């Protein structure tokens, strides 16, 4: 019960507290304490020091053991910088949104933890729908026309998508007709244990619905549009939260159904679907990187690319799967860094258009350099973690039964790298023709420190390659029956 209260109840209570207390300072204090407790406990669970006892419908398994610390890590740093972010001047219309910020963020933590820890398909569904509900009002933070449209589209598309996932869950019940699972509860572990007995036709149908439905939330093409709009118009901390943790929560749902399908005859079918979705995502990112003129949209497409890569790892299996799990860890950290720095640039230039941002390296030297380093980190330049995880994924693809995919993936990623670089270098180096250069010293803020810590973290984890992380990822691979 203790773990349950830290992971889910406490954030919920804090959300209530933040809703009624109108002053931002106590809201921030309470949220930080909750984030810290959450991070501490999830790390203890991850390290295997503490064994969590959770009530019915919740449990800790190998995948939630890895994904929960990812969530609490992203969440902690985002909350840490949120206060300084909220103190920035914004339009008077947006002022009223501030007082709900921490309440919603805490509610998001509760819902997301519940989704990650759920051991029952119904519970997972309820919790992941709740994450949508908590994030949607936050997208509308700036109270602008664009953010309103983005919120509407995200809320609507994801709700319809999640409804599809629910149909998939019902079809899963149908696939259990005539087996020992008939009339039983929809616990993951029971379905995994008796997977081979399930009716293959309904199982396939169930997989299609769950995969397509959750794709709206993961941002897998062709269902990515709502997600792109939302991440590019949400305030930067929220965009970081969405890219770093919310997409992974939805991905976990796909992983669960994939785990059930793994030992059955429908495995090949599910694999092909995931691979098609993943390659399409990379393709979409590849195409839109040529014409994107909004740097936050660019980062959103980068998220589509990386989630596509993670899905590809899941689909290909074997070593690529291990690489994908590492990639999930590194990508979540790198995305927080990128979005925080993009938020600083937006704060100064008051525009998300690439055209409006010129010689950022002179005007905002600290942000500019960190943004550049973060770009190198996300593009898989050593010594940052993404380099190592991408190498693992590539190696996995090369030695799988579909080595030709590697050619496609590398081609797409090369052009994504070049085009992203072109945009970022224009923003950083190109001189503005209109106004004279004013070089002023940028103040060193908390978010710069956080970004440096995170960049060091992503390097240290990759270079030292902790035994415990390796063991946890191997446990997941073993649970999924991946042959290495």
């Amino acid at each position, binding site marked *: 019960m203790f773990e349950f209260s830290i992971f889910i109840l406490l954030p919920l209570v804090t959300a209530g507290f933040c809703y009624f207390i109108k002053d931002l300072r106590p809201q921030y204090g309470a949220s930080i304490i909750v984030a810290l407790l959450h991070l501490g406990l999830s790390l203890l669970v991850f390290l295997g020091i503490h064994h969590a006892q959770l009530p019915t*419908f919740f449990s800790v398994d190998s995948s939630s053991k890895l994904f929960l610390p990812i969530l609490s890590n992203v969440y902690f740093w985002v909350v840490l910088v949120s206060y300084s972010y909220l103190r920035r001047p914004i339009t008077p219309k947006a002022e009223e949104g501030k007082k709900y910020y921490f309440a919603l963020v805490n509610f998001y933590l509760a819902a997301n933890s519940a989704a990650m820890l759920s051991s*029952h398909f*119904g*519970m997972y*569904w*309820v919790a992941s*729908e*709740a994450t*949508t*509900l908590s994030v*949607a*009002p936050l997208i*509308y933070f700036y109270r602008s*026309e*664009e953010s*309103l*449209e*983005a*919120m*509407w*589209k995200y*809320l*609507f598309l994801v*709700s*319809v998508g999640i*409804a599809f996932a*629910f*149909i998939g*869950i*019902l*079809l899963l*019940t*149908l696939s259990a*007709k*005539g087996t020992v699972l008939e*009339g039983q*509860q*929809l616990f993951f572990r029971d379905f995994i244990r008796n997977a081979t007995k399930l*009716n293959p*036709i*309904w199982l396939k149908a169930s997989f299609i619905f769950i995969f397509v439905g959750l794709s709206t939330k993961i941002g897998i093409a062709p269902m990515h549009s709502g997600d792109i*709009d939302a991440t*590019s*118009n949400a305030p930067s901390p929220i965009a970081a939260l969405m890219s770093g943790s919310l997409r992974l929560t939805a991905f976990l749902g796909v992983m669960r159904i994939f785990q059930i399908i793994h030992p059955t005859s429908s495995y090949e079918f599910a694999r092909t679907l995931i691979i098609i979705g993943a390659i399409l995502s990379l393709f979409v990112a590849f195409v*839109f990187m040529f*014409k*994107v003129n909004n740097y936050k*949209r660019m980062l959103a497409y980068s998220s589509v690319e990386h989630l596509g890569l993670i899905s590809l790892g899941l689909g290909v299996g074997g070593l690529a799967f291990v690489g994908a799990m590492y990639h999930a860890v590194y990508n979540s950290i790198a995305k927080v860094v990128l979005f925080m720095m993009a938020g600083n640039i937006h704060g100064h230039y008051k525009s998300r258009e690439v055209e409006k941002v010129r010689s950022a390296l002179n005007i905002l030297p600290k942000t500019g350099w960190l943004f550049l380093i973060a770009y190198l980190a996300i593009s898989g330049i050593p010594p940052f973690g993404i380099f190592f995880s991408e190498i693992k994924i590539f190696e996995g693809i090369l030695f799988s039964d579909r080595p030709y995919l590697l050619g496609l993936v590398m081609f797409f990623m090369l052009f994504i790298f070049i085009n992203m670089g072109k945009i970022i270098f224009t923003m950083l180096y190109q001189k503005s023709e209109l106004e004279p250069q004013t070089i002023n010293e940028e103040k060193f803020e908390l978010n710069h420190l956080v970004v440096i810590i995170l960049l060091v973290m992503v390097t240290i984890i990759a270079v030292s390659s902790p035994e415990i992380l390796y063991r946890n990822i191997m446990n997941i691979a073993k649970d999924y029956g991946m042959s290495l």
Partner: protein
Amino acid sequence: MENVLSILFCLSLFYVSVTSRVKAYVTVLRVQGIILSVLLMIPFIYKFSIFGIILPATLLLVKVYLIPRYINKVILDLDIKRRIEPTIQQMVFLPIVIATMVIIFLASSILSKSTELDVIPFASGFSAIVIGIYIIMSRKKLIVHVCGFLIMENGIFLFGTAVASELPMMIELGTLLDIFVVVFLMGIALNKISSTFEGFEVTHLGRLKD
């Protein structure tokens, strides 16, 4: 009894595909809510239990009272015009709906040979899901999109009873709460949209593009 209710449910779908008034959509949502609650209450005719009545009662409260009332309030507040403004004329829409339903019913009766399922509730539920999506695709007004989404949700509910999935009550209540909050947020968003864009049609939403 289930079959009779499912057929009534299908009739409501036909009505919704020919009507051109926004209010009629809300009425249909109410009727569907009543049908679903009655469907859930059938087992209690034989065996009454206080505990089991919570779910049908909540369903009745949320789907028949709260959500339609809220949508009506939004319609009144925003002074939304009565006509739905379709992009496909009703006389074309109805045959499409009928054709879809015929295909779904035929397909489910074929499927029922290999798996044991109640064909009529199963097919009615699935039809409602598809028609909900049709409505979302072929209407301009955003409030009608919300209604289409709710028709889809009702379809999923009927579909769930057909495949005899017994989710625990806590989770069923959770789903109902989620749906209610979704509609609530959509209503707030609609309010904002009508004041920001001076309209509530999907054609107003075209700012975000690449």
